[in-house]
């Protein structure tokens, strides 16, 4: 199964990279751009038949390794084959 994990910075935690990208876009003339925030995605190939079980395992991976719960939130999407 393909699983996608999207990791974003938690609300209220500053995101200097997003701020800098927003400024960069506006300097290029894209005045329509407001807030910009940056995130990460992780695409995993995971063997398994039960989407629920796979999700639970990936959730554990997120807590243990993939995301930093102190400053990040994550969202898991299981894309069945």
């Amino acid at each position: 199964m393909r699983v996608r994990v999207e990791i974003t910075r938690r609300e209220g935690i500053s995101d200097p990279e997003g701020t800098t990208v927003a400024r960069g876009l506006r300097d290029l003339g894209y005045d329509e751009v407001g807030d910009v925030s940056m995130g990460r995605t992780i695409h995993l190939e995971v063997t398994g038949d039960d989407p629920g079980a796979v999700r639970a395992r990936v959730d554990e991976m997120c807590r243990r390794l993939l995301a930093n719960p102190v400053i990040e939130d994550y969202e898991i999407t299981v894309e069945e084959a």
Partner: protein
Amino acid sequence: MTPRVAVVVFPGTNCEHDVVHALGLLGVDARLVFHKETSLDGYAGVVLPGGFAHGDYLRTGAIARFSPVMAGVARFAEIGRPVLGICNGFQILCEAGLLPGALVENRDLRFVCRPVHVRVEDTGSVLTRAASAGQVLRIPLNSYEGNYVADEADLDELERTGGVVLRYSDPSGTVDDAANPNGAARNIAGVARGSVAGLMPHPERAVEPILGSDDGRILLESFVDSLTPSRV
């Protein structure tokens, strides 16, 4: 008259004073030029020094390449005046399309600051014309995104045209994976195209024996030699 060289300062650049110091030792009149300047008139060559322009946010060099001064840099490339990018400067030149390829994170995902050995592969460039082919130089590397990548076809093209000017090697000049500090494709440490050259190691950090090596001089001397129009 001593040739005048522009050393560009982007917000986040940090090696500009070191480059000015090193070029000064070679008798060059090196001046800091702020990235908001639009012209490089009056300069015989330009150096984009190392650092973290715009914090390396998004991708290294991504935002810097839009600075006004880059129009002047592109113009130099067009008319054949020497352009040298060191470390972050190399990354910016790649982003700007003035050199092929790109630089991504080191394969072990760790920043590396230590002297490495590089072998001179081609002596036609503004970076290596004073050196001899096969010469091994000991020069500090200082980067997180030092891993040179490009399509296989681009790499082949680069090799064919003599664009690979420096490769990571061991002290005896052997080029192999053990001598590759960051995973760079084909151990590439420096490339050149026309009058433009870029490299990841910092030649300006190896210009006096008391700093541990003065092997970087030969590269900067090559650049200085190239400032005389007849040599380009």
